C-alpha cells in the first residue's frame, strides 16, 4: 500500500473540521443562532464571542457553525440530485453509444452547459422564489450534465473491453451490464467528480445567498453573512473576514481532497505514476 498523498490529508482535515462544526451545531452552539442582542452588536472577536458579533449582536461562531450546515446540506443534496439524474443518463447514453438516445442525451447536456450556471440559478429562483430548496434544485440541475458526461466517458472506454464483450456474449442485456459491470468500475471517477462538484456546490450556494437567492433569513448562510458585512467592512471587518475564510477554507479543503482522491483512485493517474 502506497502512502496516501499529503494533499488528501490536508483536504480531509479541513473538510472534517467544517463537517464536524455542522454536526455539532445540531446539538449545541455557543449562543442561540437567532438570538439578537442589539446592545452587544458589532463586537470584535473576544473570549465571550470567539468570532465576534454581527450587526444584530448575534454570535458569529454560532452562525458559522449553522451556516456550515446550510452549505453542506445544500451541496450534498444538490450533488446527490446531479448524480441521481446524471449517472443513469450517462450509462444509458454509453449503452446506446452512437445511437439516437445517446445523441439526444448528450445534446441536451450541451444545451444545459451552454447556459452560465449562475444565471440559470438566478432565473430558477426568480421564477419559483428565493429559498434553499430552489437553490438546491438550481445547483442540482447544473450537476446533472457534469455527471452524465463523466459517466458516459468512463463507460465508453469500458464498453470496448473484452470482459464486457464476454458478458454480452453470455447474454446479459445492456441494462444489467451497465449496473453490474460498468457502474462499479467507474465509481472511483464519480467519487472524485462528486468531491469537486461538492466544493462547487458550496461556492454556488454562497453565491446565490450573496445575491439574496439562497437560504432566506433567519437561516444563517455564509454567502448572506458576506453580503450583510459589505457596508460594515470598515467598522467591523471581522464580519466579512470570518465567513469569507470559512468559504475559502472549505472549498480549498474539498478541492485538495478531490485532488488527493483522484491521485489515489483514478486509474489513469495511478498508471501514470
Amino acid at each position, binding site marked *: 500500500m502506497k502512502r496516501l498523498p499529503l494533499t488528501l490529508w490536508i483536504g480531509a482535515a479541513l473538510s472534517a473540521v467544517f463537517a464536524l462544526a455542522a454536526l455539532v451545531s445540531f446539538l449545541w452552539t455557543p449562543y442561540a443562532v*437567532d*438570538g*439578537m442582542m*442589539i*446592545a452587544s*452588536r458589532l463586537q470584535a472577536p473576544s473570549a465571550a464571542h470567539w468570532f465576534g458579533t454581527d*450587526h*444584530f*449582536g448575534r454570535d458569529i461562531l454560532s452562525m458559522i457553525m449553522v451556516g456550515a450546515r446550510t452549505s453542506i446540506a445544500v451541496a450534498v443534496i444538490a450533488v446527490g440530485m446531479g448524480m441521481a439524474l446524471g449517472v443513469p443518463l450517462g450509462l444509458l447514453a454509453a449503452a446506446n453509444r452512437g445511437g439516437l438516445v445517446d445523441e439526444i442525451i448528450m445534446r441536451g447536456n450541451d444545451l444545459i452547459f451552454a447556459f452560465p450556471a449562475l444565471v440559470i440559478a438566478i432565473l430558477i429562483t426568480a421564477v419559483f*422564489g*428565493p429559498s434553499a430548496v430552489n437553490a438546491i434544485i438550481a445547483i442540482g440541475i447544473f450537476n446533472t450534465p457534469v455527471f452524465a458526461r463523466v459517466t458516459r466517458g468512463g463507460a465508453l472506454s469500458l464498453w470496448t473491453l473484452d470482459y464486457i464483450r464476454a458478458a454480452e456474449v453470455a447474454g446479459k442485456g445492456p441494462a444489467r451490464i451497465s449496473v453490474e459491470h460498468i457502474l462499479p468500475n467507474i465509481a472511483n471517477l464519480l467519487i472524485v467528480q462528486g468531491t469537486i462538484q461538492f466544493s462547487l456546490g458550496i461556492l454556488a450556494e454562497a453565491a446565490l445567498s450573496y445575491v*439574496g437567492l439562497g437560504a*432566506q*433569513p*433567519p437561516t444563517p448562510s455564509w454567502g448572506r453573512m458576506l453580503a450583510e458585512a*459589505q*457596508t*460594515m*467592512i*470598515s*467598522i467591523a471587518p471581522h464580519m466579512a473576514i470570518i465567513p469569507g475564510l470559512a468559504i475559502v477554507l472549505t472549498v480549498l479543503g474539498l478541492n485538495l481532497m478531490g485532488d488527493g482522491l483522484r491521485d489515489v483512485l483514478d486509474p489513469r493517474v495511478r498508471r501514470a505514476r
Partner: protein
Amino acid sequence: MKRILTIALAALAPLMALVATPATAQRTDINVGMVLEPPNLDPTSGAAAAIREVTYANIFEGLTRFGPDGSVNPGLAHAWDISDDGLTYTFHLREGVIFHDGSPMTAADVVFTLDRARGEDSTNAQPQLFAAIETVEALDELTVQVTLNRQQGSFLFNMAWGDAVILSPESAADNATNPVGTGPFRFTRWVQGDRVEMERNPDYWGEAPALERVTFRFIQDPSAAFAAMMAGDIDAFPNFPAPETLAQFEADPRFAVIVGSTEGNTILSMNHENEALADVRVRQAIAHAINRQDIIDGAMFGYGTPIGTHFAPHNPDYLDLTDLTPHDPERARELLAEAGHEGLSLRLALPPPGYARRGGEIVAAQLREVGIRTEITNVEWAQWLEQVFRGGDYDLTIVSHTEPMDIGIYARPDYYFRYDDADFQGLIAELDVTSDPAERTALLHAAQRHIAENFVVGFMFQLPKTGVANAEIEGLWENAPVPANDMTAVRWTN
C-alpha cells in the same frame, strides 16, 4: 545631467502652475446620489417618491410650494384670495413665467393641469388632493378661480404637492421621458439606469440658482454608494442608504452629515384580510412583541424616533402614543393564547431598503420570542408594488410611508391594509370638511388615537433623513417634509 533636469523642470513649470493655482472659480455643478431610479419623470402620474425627488422644485413647480421646513409658500401663484365661505380660491399667477419649451405659463395651463388631474382617465397617484375641486376657471390670463364642493382646510397644502405641479398641455403627454416644466432647471438627458441631467434655465422667472448643472445619479448598492461618496464621484447623497457608515463620514472633515426628519412613518403593515390579523388581540400582541428601540438601533444604527401612531413626531399635532404598546413579550404571549393563535405562522415580505430588510430580521426575531413564526421573503420594489401594495397578497410587510399627513390612508378600505372601519372613515370625512384649527387638532388627535388603540398596524419609527454631503456644499434641505431634492438654493462655498 543637471541641465536636463533644469529643462525638464522648465517644461513642467506651466503645468505645475496650473495645478498650484487655487481654484478661483467655484464649482457650479453637482452630482447628487439617489438610491432608487424614478420609473418615469412625470410627477403627475406615478406614486414613486423618486420621481418627485428628481423633479420637485427643480423642473416642475406648483401653484404653491413647500419650503424646507414644510411650510406652504407661494409658488407659481404669488398671491391668492379665499372667499369667506372657504369655497372659492382665486389664485394670482406670476407674470413672465415661461415653460422650458418656450411657451408662456398662463391661467389656461392651470385649468388644464387641475382638470387633467381630477379627470376620468387621470393617472395621478394622489387623487384625494383634487377630490374637493368643483370647478376651475380662468378669469383672465393670470387669474384662476378654483371652486370647492366643500370646505377643505388643506387645499393650499395639497396644491404644493409634487403631484399638483403645473404642466403645459403641449408637453404633458411626453413628460414621462422629457419633462417640461417652469422650474429653475431644465431637463437635458436621462441615461436610464445611471443618471438624470439638468441644466440651469436661463429664462427662469425667479432668482437664478447658483448651480449650472445638476446630475442625479442612481446607486442602489449601499457599499457602492459609500465608495462613490468617498471617491468624490457623488457630492451629496441626501438619503444615504447605509446608516452604519455615517459615523465614518462624521469623522472625516471632507464631509458633512445632515440628519433631519422625514414624513416617513415606518410601520409593520398588516393585512386585515388574514384571518388571524383580523383579530385585534393578535395585532395587539404583535404590537407588544415589537421592541422599537432595538429596531432603531439594529436597523438604523440609532437614527430614528419611535412612533406609536401614524403621524410625524415633528408635527405640532402629534400625539406620543408609544406608551400604549410598550415592549412586553409576556403580555403578547397572553394575548395570543387568549385569541387561540399560539403557533401562528405569518409571511413577512421585505422590500429592498435597509430599514425593511434589517428591521424585518429583527422583527422576525422579536415575533419568534412570543411564539409567532415568520417566513421572510425579500422582494424587489416592482414585485412589492405589484404583489403587496396593489395585490394585497401578504400578511406582514415593512415599509416607510413618506407622504406628509397621510393618516387618511387608514380610511381607504381598498388600501393594502384592507382595514375597513366605519368609525375611522367618519373621522377622516369630518376632518376633510373642517378648517377650524382647534377642531382639526382635536380630530387629528382622535384619528391618531383610534388607529393606535385598534393596533391597525405595528407602528415602529419615524424614518430619519440621513444625508451625507461634501462639507463645502450649503443649501441642501435638512428635513424632508415631502420627497424632494430642491437644488434652487444649493451652492458651493469654497
